[in-house]
Structures are given as structure tokens and as C-alpha cells.
């Protein structure tokens, strides 16, 4: 148990720190790398929650595909200078930070109040069938995915096709990176 606890705290710490770093790093490349770090630690968290398949997908899709995309685009831009990393204006900045702070406070508060206070265990609130996780994850997952959620799956297929066609079209459209005229 202690290993689990330690693992959680460790991963949580990494996630938060790298997450913060994404936002705080002035150089976007560093941000991107930190984001990759976050992704990986989130994948690890998935593992602690016994979502092994998802952890794999997370690594492949995010850390692999998405991150590469980000870095590539950043390279493409070849930004020499980042004049101002953060928004200027104290009032709005303070307002933004305050609203984010309050929001996180609210969420944390709601979660903790909702789940732990008032003498109820989290199990009661989360409508739990059997706490402790899904046994045969990948199988259950694939059944759920291809039988129950087949429509969503197909729709996602359409979505991806659309994205593909769309982004290509965009790049080839008038004034795009690959415009013919």
C-alpha cells in the first residue's frame, strides 16, 4: 500500500510541477517538453488506476503524435523572440488569476466536500458497482468500444477524415501554406 501511496504522490507531484512548467516556461519549446512530461506522468497515473490500455494510448497518441506535431510547428515558426510571455495589465491579470484560483478552490472544495465530508465514503457518492477496478480491462474496453459505443467510434472516424481533408484543404486554400495560386 505504501508503494501505491508513494507512487501517487510522486506522480501527482510530477504532473503538477510539469503542468505548471508548461504554463510558466517562457520558451515554448520548454513548454512543449514539459507538456510531454505531463502526458507521460498522466499515463503513469492511468496505470495506477489500472487503465493500462489507456496509458498506452496516452503515450502513443499524446506523447508520440500530438507532441511531435507541437514541436514540429514550433520549429516551423522559428520564433526568435518571445516579447511578452504573459498577458500584461495588472487588473486583468489579477482578475484572471483570481478567477482561476477561485475556480480551482471551488472544484477542490466540491470534490472534497462531495466525496469525503459528511461522513460518507467516496464509494457511496460515486455510484459504485464494485470498487477496485475493472478486471479484464482491455476486453471490456473493446467490447464497450465496438459494441456499445460503435456509433461514437464511427463518428470519430468521420471526424478524423474530416480533419484530414479539412486541414489539407486549409493549407491549400487561398493564402494557405500550399496554395496553388
Amino acid at each position, binding site marked *: 500500500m505504501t508503494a501505491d501511496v508513494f507512487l501517487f504522490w510522486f506522480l501527482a507531484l510530477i504532473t503538477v510541477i510539469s503542468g505548471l512548467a508548461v504554463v510558466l516556461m517562457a520558451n515554448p519549446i520548454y513548454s512543449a517538453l514539459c507538456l510531454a512530461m505531463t502526458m507521460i506522468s498522466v499515463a503513469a497515473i492511468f496505470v495506477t488506476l489500472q487503465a493500462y490500455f489507456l496509458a498506452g494510448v496516452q503515450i502513443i497518441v499524446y506523447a508520440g503524435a500530438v507532441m511531435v506535431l507541437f514541436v514540429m510547428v514550433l520549429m516551423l515558426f522559428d520564433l526568435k523572440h518571445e516579447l511578452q510571455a504573459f498577458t500584461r495589465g495588472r487588473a*486583468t491579470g489579477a482578475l*484572471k488569476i483570481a*478567477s*482561476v484560483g477561485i475556480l480551482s478552490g471551488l472544484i477542490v472544495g466540491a470534490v472534497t466536500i462531495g466525496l469525503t465530508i459528511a461522513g460518507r465514503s467516496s464509494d457511496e457518492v460515486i455510484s459504485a458497482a464494485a470498487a477496485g477496478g475493472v478486471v479484464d480491462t482491455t476486453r471490456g474496453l473493446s467490447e464497450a468500444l465496438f459494441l456499445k459505443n460503435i456509433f461514437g467510434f464511427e463518428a470519430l472516424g468521420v471526424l478524423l477524415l474530416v480533419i484530414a481533408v479539412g486541414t489539407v484543404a486549409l493549407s491549400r486554400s487561398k493564402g494557405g501554406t500550399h496554395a496553388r495560386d
Partner: protein
Amino acid sequence: MNQQALIAILLLSPLIGFFLNGVRFRSTNYVLAGSIATIAVLISFICSVLLFLNLVDLPPEARRITANFFEWIAVDKFKINAGFAVDQISSIMILIITGVGALIHLFSIGYMHHDKGVTKYFAYLNLFIFNMLILVLGDSLLTMFVGWEGVGLCSYLLIGFWFNDSAKAAAGMKAFITNRIGDAAFIIGMFILFMTFGTLNMHELNMLAPTIAESSWLGAVTLGTMMLFIGATGKSAQIPLYVWLPDAMAGPTPVSALIHAATMVTAGIYMIVRLNGLFIVAPNTMMVIAIVGAATAVMAATIGLTQFDIKKVLAYSTVSQLGYMFLAVGVGAFGAGMFHLMTHAFFKALMFLGSGSVIHAMHEEQDIRKMGGLRKYLPITHATFFLGWLAIIGMPPFAGFFSKDEILWKAFSSSQGHILLWAAGVLGAVLTAFYMTRLMALTFWGKSRVDKSVHPHESPWLMTVPLIVLAILSVVGGWVGIPHVISEQIGHIPNFWEHWLEPVIRKLPTVVEGAHHDETMLEWSLMGISVGLAAISALTAYIMYTKKEGASDKVAKAFGPVYQLVNKKYLVDEAYSAGIINPLIEGSKNLWYYVDVNVIDKATYKVTDLVRGGGSFVKSLQTGNMQQYAMYIGIGVVVALSFVLMR
């Protein structure tokens, strides 16, 4: 002939005349226009006479011919017929109106023949006669009011007849608006009476009038009659609404004779006499009427002393004489008031026509300082004017004497009377004698001050005939109402007048108690005083203005500022415009500027500005920065969640 048909013809004849002339108002054929108009009025006159004779045939209590042509307004309990009634009072009035009216029409043919608008003029005159007949015949206050306003309208049109002159047009407007003030009160008076008695029929009102006099100032009858009286002050040019009448002299002179001397201006007195049953139970109103009448009589007479415009003098004289009549009805001498109304109609019409003749002869010159010695050139005019003069200053046995005397006696003796009222009356008579003599002297007698370029000439017969007829009437007109004290002496000539009016006039008891003989003596002595004083006054004036050159100026100088004040008509017009009219107009401008433009519209603009300001504010929030937008989303989420959670 059917009496209703007679009334219809009586009314319609001038109306038809109006239309006949009205449709061809641009014609300058004065003969045709004049004939149509005069014949129309003559037909009416004949009808009046026939109606009068019909009336005479009836027993005294039943002397009332009514004609209901149609229901005019009928709403709920308020039912007014187009109903007309000829009774003792109105029959006299229609005789005066159509009779004097016909003469004046005749006179006008001569007087107006050179005017381009002659046809229009006659159309207006006929319209006036029509309205005046409605006024006197209407059997309810509302039908009377129709005529009441109608004559006001005609007066407006005729005063402003020469509309190219701004002042004349303004005079017409002034007349109408001043009258309207009275009319407004009249309307209220009608409401009070209708709410009290449930009818506006004058006959019924007289019947329904309570038998016990009202002592309260706020009683329905007192208030109602007071309001009607205010209406009358407008129409009959009494204080404080008399100001329009002198200005009304801007109209053609025959108009002044017909409307502003003989007929229309007497409508107020006529109305009060018609409703005598009602007025008599409102002693407070009566008192006010008497005081106002007396005051007007004196004040107008004093102004008359100082005027130099021949028509203005006559106008103030008219105001003064009307004051007399109000004094009469105010002291309960309704018969005397009517009597004076009639005699005044004769001699004042005569004098106005005479002045018209003079003006005509003098080529539109009205300033008496530029006349003098006209006796030579205008013998007939002078002669007739002379008779009129005698009548108005109350010399026996001319018409004015009897009526004026009756009024003074009643002012003294009636229970509503007072010695001060009598004194005022006498003072008025003295002043009248003075300024009328002054007028005579300056115009006809003494040396000629006529401009060399003007060659006065006697008027044509068309104009002199009416003068003569009226002169005769001015002489004999009074003989129908010879007071008892005199008739006893000269052979018991019955007082036709009193006899005739008796059934429709409610009498007040006389105050002076005691033996019959004492009363007779008193009456004789009072009569003597007034006639004597008037005669002295006339003589003084005669001497001052014919014999002693410059005496008048000395007197004027002696009075100094008082003279100036009187000459300027007590500055009443100026006071009105400074105190009422100008503030009203300036105030209205400010009202418009401040309330409409600066308050209401500004408020509207403020609202729109507020909305627009909101719009600009929202616009300023829309900075284009997407993080700003994201912040709004964040704030929205935070606020919503806080609210949802903090329940």
C-alpha cells in the same frame, strides 16, 4: 300663418341671405348684395311683427310660442332641442334686432358701396342677424349659447373685416378671445344649472327656481348665475372684460352700430332678464352685477371724457350705458334694464350711424379734433344726432330719459338697491351728458377745424333714411314705458312696457316704505336731481367746447396725471398685456423650451444615452483579445458556480 313656420322663416331668411351673398362673395355689386341682405332682414322683421301680433293675441300668461325643430343633442339626461321660443322678452328683442338691423343694412348699402368686400360684408351681417336671432330665441341656455358664440364669431369677422390692417385683425381676435373667457364661464354656469335643475331650458329654469333667496355665496344658483354673469361681462363688455369693445370700433361703422351698440352687446342683459327668476333668488350675484354695472358705467364714462376718436367716444359710451343696464338688472329692475336696452338700441344705433355718416362725409376721418362745425354740411345727420344726444343725456321726454330714470329710481328704491348705486348712476349720467355734449360740440358745433382737402357732404338718402327713422324712435321709444309718477300727471297713459313684461318678470319688493305720496315725491325729486345735474353738466360742456377755446386744455392740465391716466384708458390694456398676455406667451415659450425640449425630450435622450452608454460599455469590453474573452468565460463559470454552491 303657422307660428312655427314663422319662426322658421324668421331664422332662415337671414341665413339664406347669408348663403346667397356668401357664395358670390367676390362680387362688388353692392346694390344686389345690399338688397338681398336687407330684404332678408326685412322678411325677418315682418315675421317678428307677425309673431309679436300673435303674441299680443294670446292671454298674458300664455304668451309663449315655441318651436322645436329637432333634437339637437341628446345624451343620457342631457337633452337639448333645437327649440326656439318667442315670449314677451324675446319678441321685443327680435323686433329690435330685425328692425334696427334692417335699418342698418339699409344704411350699409350707402356706407359700404365703395368697398370691394361689400358682398362679403352683407353676408356677414346676415349671418350675424341669424345668430343673434338664435341667441334671443333659443329656449335653452345651450341654444342661446349657439347664438352667443355665433354672434361672437360674426363680430370677429366683421371687426377684422379690413383684415389687411394688422391692428384691425388683432382687434377682431381680441374680441373673440375676450368673449371666449366669458364663454368659458358661461359653459360652467350651464353645467352648474344643469346639475342643479336637470335642465337648461330657460323657461323651466325660471319655473324651477327656488322661491327662497339663496344667501350663501357658494349656493348652486348663486354660483351658476355668477358664472353666467361672467359670461355676460364678456359679451356685454363689462369690467373686467370690456377691453375688446373700444377696439372693436375697427370694424365698419354700421357694424359698430348694429353689433357693438344695439344688439350683440346687450345679449348679456337679455340673458339675465330671461333668467330673472333665477337671478332674483341669488341676491349675492345681483349685488355683484349691480356693483360691476355701476362701476363700469362710471369708469367707461370717465374714459369717454378724454377720447378724441368719435367712435371711441361712442364705444365708451356704450360700455357705460351697458353698465347702466347691468346696474338695472342688478338691482332687480329687469324691466327697466330691458327698457334701457331698447332705447339704447335706438339712440346708440342712431349715433353710431350718425358718426358713420360723419366719417363717410369726412373721408374716413374719425378724430373729432379735426371736425367741428359740421352742422352746416350735414344738416340731417346733425339733426338726427342731436335728437340722439338728447335721448342719451336723458332729457325728457326723449327715450333715454324714461329708461334711465327708471333705472336710477330702482337703484335707489329696490331692496337690492343702495344710495351709492344711485349716486354712481347719477354720476354716470352727469358724465355722459358731459362727454356727449363735448362730442356734439366738437363735431357739429363751433368752428370748423376740417382739413382743407376734405369737403364734407351730406350722405345719400340710403343713409339718412335710417337715421331719421332711428331718430324718431329715439324720441318716441321711451313713451311705451312712462313711469307711474309721470303718467299720473299727464293722463294715465298706461305703462305698456311693464304691463307687457309683467308675466315673465319676477319683482323685488321696493325698500322705501311709507306712504304712496312720499314715494312719489321722492321719485320726483330724484328725477329732478339727475336731470338737473345732467343738464348742468351738458351746459358746462357746451360752454367749454364751443364758447371758450382752450378751456378744455386747461381743465385737462389741471387734472394732470389723472387726465393722462384716463386718456390712456386707465392703462387697462397695458396692464392686461403686461400682467397676463405677455407672461402667458413668454411662459409658454419657456414651458415649451423647458418642459418639452429640456425635460421630456431630454429624459428620453437620457434613456437612450443610458442604453447607448451600456452599448459602448459592452463594446469596450469586447477588446478583441481572446484571453479577455476566456477570462469572461472563467469569471462566468466562477460566479455561476459560486452562486450554485453557496445556496
